[in-house]
């Protein structure tokens, strides 16, 4: 086995973090390493945490780490923050709230910037999860950006998704309704000491009662998390959340839904890989040769239509493939 692969499988943070970096930077050698690593992945339980900015996702993640460490679970965290579309830079600040675990060797927190991805994660998230899986982390928590309402990428990666809501964002429920129900396995009403928590709970409950999802055996529970500044009661609330996540895990295993989700995940991974192996090289070569610009000009001036262009490109590239 490659020494890097060996090191990662032994839990070495330096090697793992460096590989994640190579994946983010799309270094070609990274793909070869993922291929070698793949056999060692797939054993971790993956939790997604999503919700609007300011909902307290990082604070919850931090508290969950504390709780899960009590159970001696090893943990990986991927925290995603947005890349500025103007400068390409990003401030990755989620880990501030998790810094008290920095020295705990059972916890590995890695921040990712979206780098233009729109689904609430980063293009590198899937493979970064694999790296953490190969490290042998029992649990991997993925914290999404929380900016848009299209944060659906997480369901392709996580086994259980917790959607975090806070009182005073009632309108949000309405706009997020459809998407929310689709992705939530667990609802969290965070900062429930604030005004409006009861109302939020009522709304959510009635929404859940109307949902067809109740028919398939799992009704997303609503976990109420109170004041993070009340250490004792907060810890109890978090234990409750961990308990619900565990119950969902058991449900997935017993109902066969886990295999279903693994299947869905495999499908998504094939699509991603195809995009990486087919589409990206094509686009790259067209960009380098300047043809992409040329095609765009033709389409702009109505000398060609996008479909004909795409067909022409496809034919050419498949021919090349045949020749090889």
């Amino acid at each position, binding site marked *: 086995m490659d020494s890097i692969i060996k090191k990662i499988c032994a839990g070495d943070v330096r090697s793992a973090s460096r590989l994640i970096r190579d994946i983010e930077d799309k270094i070609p050698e990274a793909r070869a390493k993922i291929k070698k690593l793949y056999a060692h992945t797939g054993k971790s339980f993956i939790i997604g945490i999503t919700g609007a900015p300011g909902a307290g996702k990082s604070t919850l993640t931090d508290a969950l780490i504390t709780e899960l460490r009590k159970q001696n679970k090893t943990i990986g965290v991927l925290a995603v923050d947005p890349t500025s579309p103007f400068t390409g830079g990003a401030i990755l600040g989620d880990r501030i709230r998790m810094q008290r675990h920095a020295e705990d060797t059972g916890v590995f927190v890695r921040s990712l910037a979206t780098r233009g991805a729109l689904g609430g994660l980063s293009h590198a998230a899937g493979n970064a999860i694999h790296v953490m899986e190969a490290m042998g982390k029992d649990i991997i928590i993925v914290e999404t950006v929380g900016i848009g309402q299209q944060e659906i990428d997480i369901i392709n990666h996580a086994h259980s998704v917790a959607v975090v809501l806070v009182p005073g964002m009632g309108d949000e429920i309405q706009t997020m309704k459809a998407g929310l129900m689709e992705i939530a396995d667990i609802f969290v009403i965070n900062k429930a000491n604030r005004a409006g928590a009861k109302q939020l709970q009522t709304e959510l409950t009635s929404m859940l009662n109307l949902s067809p999802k109740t028919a398939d055996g799992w009704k997303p529970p609503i976990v109420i998390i109170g004041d993070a*500044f009340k250490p004792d009661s907060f810890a109890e609330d978090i234990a409750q959340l961990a308990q619900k996540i565990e119950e969902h895990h058991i449900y997935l295993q017993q109902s066969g839904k886990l295999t279903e989700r693994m299947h869905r995940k495999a499908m998504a991974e094939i699509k991603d890989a195809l995009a990486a192996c087919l589409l990206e090289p094509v686009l790259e070569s067209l960009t380098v040769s300047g043809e992409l610009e040329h095609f765009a000009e033709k389409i702009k001036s109505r000398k060609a239509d996008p479909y004909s262009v795409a067909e022409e490109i496809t034919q050419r590239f498949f021919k090349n493939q045949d020749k090889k």
Partner: protein
Amino acid sequence: MYFSKEMQEASLKLNKKWADKVQKSLKTNPDQKERFTTVSDTEIKRLYTPEDIKDINFAEDISVPGEFPYLRGNQVTGYRGRHWTFRMFSGMGSAQDTNHRWHMLLREGQTGLSTAFDFPTLMGYDSDSSKALGEVGKCGVAIDTLEDFLALMEGIPLDEVTTSMTINPPATVLFAMYCAVADIKGVPLTKIGGTIQNDMLKEFIAQKTFMCPPEPSVKLISDTVEFGTKFVPRWNTISISGYHIREAGSTAVQELAFTIRDGIEYVEDVIRHKGLNVDDFAPRLSFFFNSHIDFFEEICKLRAARRIWAKIMRDRFHAQNPRSMWLRFHTQTAGCSLAAQQPYNNVVRTTVEGLAAVLGGTQSLHTNSLDEVFCLPSEHAAELALRTQQILAEETGVANTIDPLAGSYFIETLTNEIEEATWDYIHKIDDMGGMIAAIEKGFPQMEIADASYKFQRQLENSEKIMVGVNKYSTNKQHPIPLVEISEEIGDQQIKRLQDVRRKRDSRAAMKSLDNIKNACKKGENVMPHCIEAVKNLATLQEICDVYREVYGEYRDPGLY
């Protein structure tokens, strides 16, 4: 402000004439820049005229000293009876070192003491905590137990000199130590005077010296207010501070607004939880402002502060006692306005800032030393800074008359504008549900972060100028001697602390810590238990650990 319609017409005519001339002149003599702004980026007009203050009602809006709205000061005689207090912030190394510096300052004519503690003390850690690594005695004096505090106060007459202590999360402990020292020396608590800063909200907003979450932090503050009101009547149990908000990069208006809104929060909490009447304790509330480099803006800020607070006390809290409406404050010149380049320039900056504080009517003043951008002040630099304010007081004549700039078209206009912008912020924070709620949302923190980033950018592209930094810079060096705090001071302090732990009656110390814990859990006032605990030589951290255990720890939410 006009006395007749004719006067207004004549004045407007002149304004018009001038404006026309300006337009003509600009064609041949263009302005040096497009916008002329204060350091807070408030735009200033080329000229102010009677038209700008035409709506001012002298009796209601300006009035005379000692009368509502106290714009012109609380004292009817101004600085003629006594100058502002010369109060230089100082503390370094061990308690003995600091005591030595204090005696020097008192000999040189300082009239009040002001204590700087080191970071472990400020954060509630003992000198031998792993968190204290490299920090002991560096930024101020290290205090672990009552033994240190006794050494600090050696030879200081507690019933004559007032002492200010810049201490926040562990304020109960240091206040308790002061009371314990008074007891030991046989000075009644009714005779001692001083101030503890004890303003936690600004820590969450700006300075980040925090320990417990906001709510219990405010509870501990209310404990000291209650205890002070009942037993230590000459003590200012809270100094509501804008200084650090400004140093964190806020504008003048943000400094004023967040500070005043913090004050409202404290008053509400004491009334709600301690059952005190506003007039019982409001006269002992004190404030602490920054005096930055923009001369007029600072004067107007301080004047506006008095008028706003008086209105809040009268209209919001229905105070009856005029003293409740007085905004009394200490001022420090702006550390963040000083530059490491060409450090002697700092003396000039400090002089201008000190002058602004005096013209704004401060009750007490610290003037920064020229070397404070590098390290703690040297003895010579501290003396020069003290002399700076003594020259202002004794030679310049600026204290001869009260509020000398009142009535200026510009000063009154800017005072009004600052007041209005301040009310906007106060109302906004009211709408959020108060300051604690606003802090949880990160509102004041982000407002300050935005302002400081904007200023830094303006400095980078020379929209704002710092002499010697981004203009008139030179390679010529005029180095100044710097104070170095040796690492050995930490070792000695740790040894002293461990000696105390060895020789004390540990059972008694632990018992009194238990009493504090019980008081915390029951919501009782912790102060009497703290005094007992420090007398039993419980350490600063041991007491703070009780708070952390019961109330939880607050950690930097890292807003950027």
